């Protein structure tokens, strides 16, 4: 009975239960990948305006040095992940599929690669505004995948208050174990990060939400939690998309973020646990965001691993370090299998927001025959936003995008649960993404025409 009570867990309504496939890497410690010769740092690897470069061709840069500054409020700083020389500033292949301006750094093979100006920061003596500025210049963005600049989240608008700070450690994407290993191995950094963030936001309390397939991490965090830290570890049901901001808030606080609004409208700020740990490191060593943990996994890679890599490490180097791809690889994804991005080139660099690299083989990548919708209700029961994907899918098929607006297509969070459950293999979320992009374009046009 006590065990049952202990294992009480929270969750949201609807959602899906895919296999978690975390067995490839969950037992593997975080492993630092040795330095390679070249690093590619796209100026656009976050939501918002591209960073503005501060270095010139041929300039020597040091590990941790600021090499590009935020060009707007919603933008991010960029730092050299290694000591070396700026070899090029030119368009390079970006995981998003386009060519994007990037700073290319050639490593100095003789450098010891120590961090420039490494020292602990006496954060307690700094004001919240000073701490926020350090985070802005530290180049922090959400490490869960969306890469939204962290300082923008913390700049709470006038009249609003972040009563609760949420550490998102649900890691609901199958295959990924990045957040899990960070919790097991870097919990002091997480707690330090929470302290700093609570001070910046002036929040009452922090919550760490963890899915219950990582029960050892939940227990460890609870054991190690400093008694003076106003923080609670919340076990969550292992259910996709538990890690979506809105679902996390619903599970813990039973509050819904109003349609079209942000978590701050329900007094919440949410950050990924990896981001929080990196912020902890910032104040421990003065280390800006220059490296991250990446789950390299899937049946298509020879040696799956949880790798600590400098931002900008090229995928080819990661693959070589992990023993190469298997012969029958058909798809390489950045991120997890539910919301990840397929890659067409292996030259792309690991970005700040790259939580994992997933290699799928011909056995997972099977074309599926599409059947007509049989109104089975599985998508309606799966949609965490309570939309009707069946109806939206039929409207999308005949391109009735304006009618889709009336059925709240813009509230779709593109989690893909509908496509996952659809027995007729209808590409629902795929069509919704197209519809949403077209509708956004149209609304922008109409706005421009009015102005």
């Amino acid at each position: 009975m006590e065990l049952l009570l202990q294992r009480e867990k929270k969750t949201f309504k609807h959602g899906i239960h895919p296999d978690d496939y975390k067995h490839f890497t969950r037992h593997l410690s975080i492993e630092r990948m040795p330095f390679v010769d070249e690093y590619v740092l796209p100026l656009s690897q976050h939501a918002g305006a591209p960073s503005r470069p501060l270095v010139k061709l041929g300039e020597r840069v040091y590990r941790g040095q600021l090499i590009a500054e935020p060009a707007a409020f919603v933008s991010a700083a960029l730092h050299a992940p290694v000591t070396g020389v700026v070899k090029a500033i030119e368009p390079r292949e970006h995981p998003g599929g386009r060519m994007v301006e990037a700073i290319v750094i050639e490593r100095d093979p003789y450098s010891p690669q120590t961090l420039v100006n490494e020292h602990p920061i006496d954060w307690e003596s700094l004001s919240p505004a000073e701490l926020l500025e350090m985070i802005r210049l530290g180049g922090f963005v959400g490490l869960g995948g969306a890469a939204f600049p962290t300082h923008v989240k913390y700049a709470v608008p006038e009249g609003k208050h972040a009563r609760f700070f949420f550490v998102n450690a649900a890691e609901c994407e199958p295959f990924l174990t990045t957040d899990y290993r960070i919790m097991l191995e870097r919990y002091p950094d997480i707690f330090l990060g929470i302290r700093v963030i609570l001070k910046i936001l002036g929040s009452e309390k922090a919550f760490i939400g963890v899915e219950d397939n990582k029960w050892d991490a939940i227990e460890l965090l609870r054991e190690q939690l400093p008694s003076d830290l106003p923080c609670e570890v919340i076990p969550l049901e292992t259910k996709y998309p538990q890690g979506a901001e809105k679902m996390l808030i619903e599970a813990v606080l039973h509050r819904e973020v109003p349609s079209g609004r942000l978590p701050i409208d329900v007094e919440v700020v949410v950050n990924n646990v990896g981001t929080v740990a990196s912020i902890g490191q910032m104040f421990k060593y003065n280390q800006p965001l220059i490296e991250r943990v990446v789950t390299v996994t899937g049946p298509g890679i020879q040696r799956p691993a949880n790798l600590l890599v400098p931002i900008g490490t090229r995928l080819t180097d990661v693959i070589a370090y992990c023993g190469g791809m298997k012969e029958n690889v058909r798809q390489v994804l950045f991120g997890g299998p539910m919301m990840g991005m397929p890659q067409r080139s292996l030259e792309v660099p690991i970005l700040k927001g790259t939580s994992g690299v997933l290699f799928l083989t011909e056995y997972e990548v099977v074309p599926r025959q599409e059947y007509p919708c049989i109104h089975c209700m599985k998508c309606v029961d799966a949609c965490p936003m309570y939309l009707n994907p069946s109806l939206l899918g039929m409207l999308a098929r005949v391109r009735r995008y304006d009618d889709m607006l009336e059925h709240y297509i813009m509230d779709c969070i593109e989690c893909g649960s509908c496509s996952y459950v659809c027995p007729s293999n209808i590409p629902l979320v795929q069509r919704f993404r197209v519809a949403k992009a077209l509708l956004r374009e149209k609304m922008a046009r109409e706005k421009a025409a009015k102005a």
Partner: protein
Amino acid sequence: MKTREPKLLLTTSPFIKSPHDTRFIMWQVNYALLPVILASVYYFGINAVLLIAVSLAGALLPEWIWSRQQNNPVNTIRDGSAVITGLLFALTLPPGIPLWMAFLGGVVSVVLGKILFGGLGYNIFNPALVGRAFLQAAFPVSMTTWMPHASLENFFQIRGDLLTLPFMKPRMDALSAATPLAKMKFEMQPTGITDLLLGSTAGSLGETAAVIILLAGIYLAIRGVINWRIPVGILATVFVLATLLHWVDGTKYPAPWFHLFAGGLMLGAVFMATDPVTSPITQKGVWIFSVGVGLLVVVIRVWGGLPEGVMYSILLMNALTPLINKVVRPRIYGMRKSES
């Protein structure tokens, strides 16, 4: 500079899928029908075998022709839905009906019930019931002439009007019998519960063995193939109404278990009302739908001219389903003002 890996596929997320596709779901229903078919063969012998085979042929022939016409890369027969229609239609037939009528009904089920609407997923009414309703209207006498179940000794003896040629006058077997519902309605004679559960009564080919149908339904519900709320809603509504009526006048209205296990209620609630295509798409809508079916069944059985009303109840609620879907819409996340 561009180094596109030729073997890498560019599709969009999600990249994993639930293993249960439409074909799997449809064939699960067919497998669940097997014990029902076996029971029907046990009770009605060679008649059941012939009628089911002929009905199935009648349902599959137009599906096959249509599929060829559509230039579908995959024959739609393989999705299993026409097989369900053929089998379900056969199981609603009286055991002595002429074979040619069964064949015609099978054709009508798929053509009028499904293909004319645009094929799988687009029909409004349950195709098997469309076929049965057509026969009921066209050949009311043959559709209401029942016979007692056979024993294993005369398994191979063809009984009833099976071999009557098209549009010839059926001979009307002297060996006819009344269904439990008709006995109740017209003679005030209830049937024992053991007979109803095991199926040793007169009735349609597949409707008599209530307990077998119930077990098949439990299997389908556990596998997530059918929505358990539909049979539960229907049966609960019938049970509650029948209990009330029985309580008002126990001599006039039979006990609630009689209504539950007699006639086609179990077959309809488990296999026909649960057709996803023709039932609502929200859980709230499903409750309305199933309570509606239960209500209509009792109303028709108790106050209607017919002893049985499952077919019309389901067809009527099928007709209401588009309206239910339009009216009952779930609240969208974040639409109601959140509590602070």
